[in-house]
C-alpha cells in the first residue's frame, strides 16, 4: 500500500518578472499588474511538488495536486501532471477571488477533506505574490493535523515523517506522525517534463470542484481588504564612479568612500 500525498499549488504571476510593471491605480486603489508576465506555479509550491516527486521516486506514492483560484489554467498547473503528479483538482469558483488567508485555507481544507484519505499534505513556504506564509498553517488547523514549516528535507519511515527544518544558523530534525502538513523551502527545483510527458498530461482530466461541490456557503468567505496599497520608494541618487578603466574605478571608489567618511 502506498502513500497519498496532496500538494497545494497556487497559480501566480511569475515573481521573477521585472519590478517595473507593478503600480497602483490611484483612482481605484487597485494594483496594476505588469503586462506580459506569464502565470506560473508558485515557485515555492514547485519545491513542494519536487519534494513529493522525490518521495515517489523511491516508494509507492500517489500525488494529487490541488489548486484554488478563479481563472486557473490547465496550461500552467497542468505542468504538475507532466512531471509526475497523478491527479489534478481545481477548486474554482467566482466566489474564490481575492480571499483572505483564513477563507483560502478553509476552501483548500474542504477540498482535501473531500478527497478523504491522505497521508501527507505539502505546500510551499509562502506564495510569491502575497508573501504571507499563513495558509499552510491554517489548512493544518482546519484539518486538525500537525504542521511543520520551513521544511527542507523529508523522509518517511513507516508512518513517521522525519524532517529537517531550516533555521537561521543551521537546521533542526523533527518527527511527526502521518497525516501531517509540511511547508517546504528549497528541496530542489522542479524537474522538467519531456515532450511525451507533456502530451500525455494533456490527455489527463482535471477535476473541478466549485463552492457548491464543496458545500461552501459563499457568504462565509471573507475577502482581503486593504486600507491602501502603494509602491514603496527606496530610490536614492547613485553616485556613479567615473574612471578610464574598471581598475581605476575600483581604486577611486575606495577613495570616495574615505572622503565621504563611509570608511
Amino acid at each position, binding site marked *: 500500500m502506498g502513500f497519498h500525498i496532496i500538494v497545494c499549488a497556487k497559480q501566480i504571476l511569475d515573481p521573477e518578472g521585472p519590478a517595473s510593471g507593478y503600480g497602483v491605480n490611484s483612482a481605484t486603489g487597485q494594483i496594476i499588474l505588469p503586462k506580459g508576465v506569464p502565470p506560473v506555479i508558485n515557485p515555492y509550491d514547485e519545491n513542494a511538488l519536487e519534494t513529493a516527486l522525490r518521495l515517489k521516486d523511491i516508494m509507492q506514492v500517489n500525488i494529487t495536486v490541488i489548486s484554488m483560484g478563479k481563472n486557473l489554467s490547465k496550461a500552467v498547473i497542468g505542468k504538475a501532471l507532466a512531471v509526475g503528479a497523478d491527479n489534478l483538482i481545481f477548486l474554482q469558483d467566482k466566489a474564490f477571488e481575492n480571499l483572505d488567508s483564513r477563507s483560502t485555507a478553509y476552501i483548500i481544507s474542504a477540498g482535501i477533506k473531500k478527497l478523504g484519505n491522505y497521508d501527507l499534505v505539502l505546500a510551499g513556504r509562502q506564495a510569491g505574490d502575497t508573501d504571507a506564509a499563513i495558509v499552510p498553517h491554517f489548512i493544518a488547523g482546519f484539518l486538525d493535523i500537525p504542521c511543520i514549516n520551513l521544511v527542507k528535507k523529508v523522509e518517511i519511515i513507516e508512518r513517521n515523517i522525519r524532517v529537517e527544518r531550516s533555521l537561521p544558523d543551521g537546521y533542526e530534525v523533527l518527527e511527526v506522525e502521518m497525516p501531517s502538513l509540511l511547508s517546504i523551502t528549497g528541496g530542489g527545483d522542479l524537474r522538467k517534463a519531456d515532450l511525451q510527458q507533456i502530451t500525455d498530461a494533456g490527455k489527463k482530466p482535471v477535476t473541478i470542484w466549485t463552492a457548491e461541490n464543496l458545500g461552501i456557503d459563499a457568504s462565509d468567505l471573507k475577502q482581503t481588504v486593504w486600507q491602501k496599497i502603494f509602491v514603496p520608494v527606496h530610490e536614492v541618487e547613485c553616485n556613479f*564612479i567615473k574612471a578610464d578603466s574598471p581598475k581605476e574605478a*575600483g581604486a577611486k571608489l575606495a577613495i570616495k568612500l574615505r572622503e565621504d567618511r563611509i570608511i
Partner: protein
Amino acid sequence: MGAFSGITVFDGAFEDILAPGTKELLACARKLADNLDEKVNCILFGEGLNESLKEAVAFGADNVLTADTPILGKYNPDAYSIALERLVRQTASRCLILGQTSIGADIAPRVAFKLGCDLITDCVEINFNKETESFIPVHPIYGGKIYAAFNFTNQQLVITLRQKSIDPLDRDDSRKGNIIPVKVDIEPALIKIKVVKKIKEEITGVRLENAPVVVTGGRGIGSKDDFKYLKELAEILSGAVGGSRPAADNGWVPATSKVGLTGKIVAPKMYIAIGVSGSSQHLAGCIGSKNIIAINNDPSANIFKVARYGVVGDWKEVLPSFTEKLRELLV
C-alpha cells in the same frame, strides 16, 4: 475595544540575553500602547531566565510574563503555541506582536488560528490611527514591489514584524515594571511534534545579521571559488559575506548566508553588492542598510536605484583594485 487591552510581545528559546529583534518589538509595542494609554506585556519562554526579564523592562515592557517550565526551555511548536495562546487569552491582549523569525513566523499563525483572530505577517510598519483607534500594519507583497496597508478596528490581532524595521528604545534601567512568573501546564498528549536535535552550522568570523559591513555576491560572481575575493574584502572591513538567492541556490554560499525576503534581513552601515541585480526579493533583505554600494556590469541593474555609490564594470576588474586601495587606506 471593550474586553481587550494591552499590546503583548513574545519571544522564546534564547539564552537569557534579549535578542535585538525582541527589543525592536518592545519599541513598536511601546509606541502603540502609549497611543492607547495601555500596557506593554512581554511574554518570554525559556529556562533559567533572569537578566533578560530585567532587560525587557528596561527596553519598554510594563509586565514581563515568564513561564519557566522545562517543556518551554527549547522550542517546540506545539508546546509554545498552546502556552502562548493561553497567556494571550489570560492577558486579554488586543494585539500580539512577534518577530518574523523562525519561531515567530511559525507560532503566529498557530496562535491566530486558535484565537480565531486576524493575522498579518511580515510587516515593516505598524501604524495607529488615534481617532478611530485602528491598527494599520503594512505588509509588503509581490516580493516588496507593492506595500499593502491593512486596517483593524475593535478586534484582536496578531502581527509579525520584519526584523530591523524599527530601532529599539535606548536602555533605561530606571524604568519600572512587574516581573510575573506564570505557570503553564501542558498535557504531554497535546505535543504531536517531536524535536529530535538541532544542528548548528559553524560560523567563522562575524555573524551576518550583526556585521557592520556585509559584502554580498550574486549570480554575477559565477562560482563558489570566486567568493574568496569577496571574503578577502569582508575581512579587511571586519564584515561578513552574504549571497543573493542564486548564489545560495547554487551552493556558492551556505543557505544560512542568503540575504533577502526568505533569508537574512541585514541593515549594516555598509552593504557592498557585487554582481547582484537587485530583485525586489533581495532588496527586502538589505534595504535598511545605511550605504549600499554596487558593482555590476549592467548599468540598468535595479541595484543601482538603491545604491548610494556605484561602479559599472566587470567586478573581476573592479574588485582587486578596490580591495587593494582599501587595504592601503585602512592601514
